[in-house]
């Protein structure tokens, strides 16, 4: 990120306010600029230093000296001449910008912030604020920077970090201030679930539900904890409660269908999965599970579901699974050629998307 911003900054060097340079220093200044062009930064620094000795009040000379240190990668050494330049020429935005970059690159995020604010350099400012523990401000400034340069990978990276930090900060506040609230228990439940500490997660969700049984999402999340632990009957119970609370929630219907499927309740599973598909059509996972639920009882409908998965997914591992399932249906019907064709497709996609078998836990 710093390399990128530095390049932009140095392009602006010429735009920096340029008070007159005394004639005795002009030659050294020119030598330094030429050395920079040759990427001989040590020679450039030496020349700018001589110019600075001869013109201690010239902000442009100190600006160039700081810039040469920046190009050399010695950010800490760049800070004093840039600060001196800024004192002499406090209205120069490029000087504040480069000083802000230098401070940020050297790890002085708090000191960089005012410089970058003056320079209206939102991207670097957002990064400095993120590093200074101000994620709210960081998110706003990084979003502003991204509005100007959409798709910048550095800015996107820092924005995601800032958003995560803001989320974490909000969660910390929730847990410290409202630990015993339903949301507090829900947040703790999510954390335990992420750590695979299932009994602890269940306990938190149950406490949340005791406080606010009508809170949307709680039954769904608790059900997922049970599902991860292969406790399908309990998962079904929770997903059913969520589906009752949110009859229009396609995910609740899908999860309920999946829990029923795992228990071998194929007809009920198909019913819920069809309902989920009607609420949110063309979800490949829903259609795949629907196909599995229908394979034994309604093979033609199952075939349609698997074909829909293939149409949606095309070359993904889920499409490969659908081909395998189709092969099974054809095999059972004695359609060996069709089954062989589906198996070929399964093999083709599988080999293209194959992930190596696990070698360690």
């Amino acid at each position, binding site marked *: 990120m710093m390399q990128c911003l530095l390049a932009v900054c140095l392009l602006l060097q010429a735009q920096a306010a340029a008070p007159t340079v005394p004639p005795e220093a002009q030659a050294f200044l020119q030598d330094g600029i030429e050395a920079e062009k040759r990427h001989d930064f040590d020679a450039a620094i030496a020349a700018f230093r001589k110019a600075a000795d001869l013109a201690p009040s010239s902000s442009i000379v100190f600006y160039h000296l700081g810039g040469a240190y920046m190009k050399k990668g010695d950010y800490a050494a760049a800070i004093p001449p840039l600060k001196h330049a800024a004192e002499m020429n406090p209205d120069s935005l490029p000087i504040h910008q480069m000083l802000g970059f230098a401070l940020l690159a050297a790890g002085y995020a708090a000191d960089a912030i005012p410089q970058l604010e003056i320079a209206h350099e939102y991207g670097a400012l957002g990064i400095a604020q993120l590093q200074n523990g101000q994620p709210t401000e960081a998110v706003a400034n990084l979003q502003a920077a991204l509005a100007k340069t959409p798709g910048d990978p550095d800015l996107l990276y820092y924005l995601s970090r800032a958003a995560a930090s803001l989320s974490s900060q909000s969660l910390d506040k929730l847990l410290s201030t409202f630990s015993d609230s339903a949301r507090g228990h829900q947040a703790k439940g999510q954390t335990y679930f992420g750590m695979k500490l299932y009994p602890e997660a269940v306990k938190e969700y149950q406490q949340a539900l005791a406080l606010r049984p009508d809170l949307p999402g709680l039954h769904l999340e608790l059900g997922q904890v049970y599902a991860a632990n292969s406790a399908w009957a309990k998962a079904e119970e929770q997903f059913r409660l969520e589906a009752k609370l949110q009859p229009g929630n396609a995910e609740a219907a899908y999860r309920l269908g999946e829990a029923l499927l795992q228990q071998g309740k194929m007809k009920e599973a198909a019913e819920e999965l069809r309902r989920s598909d009607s609420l949110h059509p063309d979800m490949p996972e829903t259609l795949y599970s629907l196909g599995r639920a229908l394979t034994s009882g309604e093979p033609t409908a199952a075939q349609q579901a698997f074909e829909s998965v293939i149409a949606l997914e095309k070359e993904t591992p889920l499409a490969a*699974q659908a081909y395998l399932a189709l092969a099974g249906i054809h095999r059972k019907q004695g359609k060996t050629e069709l089954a062989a064709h589906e198996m070929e497709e*399964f093999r083709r996609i599988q080999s293209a998307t194959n992930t190596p078998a*696990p070698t360690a*836990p």
Partner: protein
Amino acid sequence: MRKAKACLLVLLFALSSFAQDAKPRSDAVFRVSSLNGVDFVLRNSPTSLKYLIETMPGGVALLDYNNDGLLDVFLVNGGHVREPMRSPFSFDRHDPAYWNRLYRQNRDGSFTDVTEQAGLANAGDTNYGMGVAVGDYDNDGFPDIYVTNYGKNILYHNNGDGTFTDVTAKAGVAAGGWSVSAGFFDYDNDGKLDLFVTRYLDWSVETSRTCGSAKPTYCAPGVFPPITNILYHNRGDGTFEDVSVPSGIASKKGHGLGVAFADYDGDGFTDIFVANDVTEQFLFHNNGNGTFSERALESGVALTSDGKMLSGMGVAFQDYDNDGFPDLLVTQLPHEPYVVFHNDGHGTFSPQELEAGFGMLSGKSSGWGVGLEDFDNDGWKDTFITQGHVFDNVEIYDSSLRYRDPPLLAMNRNGHFVQADAGSDVPVAGRGAAFGDLNNDGWVDVITTSLGDRPQLFLNREGKLHWLTITLRGKRSNRDGFGARVQVNGQVRFATATGSYLSSNDKRLHFGLGTAPSANIEIKWPSGIHQVLKDVKADEFVTIEEAASP
């Protein structure tokens, strides 16, 4: 046909000393105890270096080695693993603590250790023990024992006088590398039992390594190269020929752990299923001409329904839904249900684990030994599975999992399995399981092995329904009748002692008859002879000799 009344034996065992420490629960199917007189401990010697062999033993066999009508117990031990193992390797199998053990069952249900007098002590210092297969390979009427090892396997010929002789060198069945489950069967229907040996990995002490990020643990099998299985053809003169290559068995490399036999397509030749760990499963179709074609993928048994590799470990190959075709039940690691491949009747299978109820029954444990046996004699084969994770420190990696788990018992209700009380919630690192009627009461019992523990006896608490137990005596077919298709009142069993994990079952065929007081028996022998017996009285032990002609 010879019959023996069960009542005397039942009376005898009512006073028996099987259950030493059992307090049966009211709804439990089994009374769980140790075996009286059995002091065997499965010593796997876990080390911090996590040699993979440590977590894989050990087998158990139920056999009547002295033909006294009582099942005896043979247990395979692991060995002493040093930290680190240095060449020349020794697993200290000369030390009695690491011997395999043969326990003779006494009339009162207790057991006597006859290992030394039977000539079965000291399985060789360079052999780390794994599994056991039992079969009468020379048709002399006495069951022989084949022990698999990491190292060299051993064939013990039963001399018929209570002793065994190590005939491995003469027979030519030592194999080598890391052998796991094995089984006797007659693949060419020549009346002589052949031998199939699964092998797990191309692994050695020298190439061993640990895996894991948090703390060292055992590596998944994918870290080590796959290896071929072995098929030995019985020449009939006490020697075997390795036909792995010409038969096509060696054309496939895998990570074999379990093996089971059945004629899945009804062509009269016994086929082979190999449960592979994180490799596609193998279904070796017997072409009837001495060769096999591996057909797992096109038959629908290579992968899970979602196209994933199974961590196949144990396997049962019997008909669970009474449609006359042998189905497959394969145990595997947690987070996926144990897999049921339903035989659709024309040489292909469909995944049916969810329909069969295994989505509810499994997913939290690793399964090993497995059987499809009718424990409540209602005419439907139930299942019993030993459980326990591979990693002895699995909790570090997934706190929802446990190294030790109790076994799973599930009763079959018209093709759907429902969890039942096995009689014990005590978690163990379960591995082997052998199934048989230990006390000859007409109700199937189970013996299990657990790492670092004594074997457990799950003694069936009986009920009121009827049963029939059949001993086959082949004439043109192999004497054990292995490979015969036996149908009793519509139920089918395929005669075999092979299945489960590392273990060998009671070779007798047990049928629950429900409320039926009699049975019609139909046998299709490997020789092709078809034999029918009508109105056979229930609650009997029946020996059926192969008819001279169809």
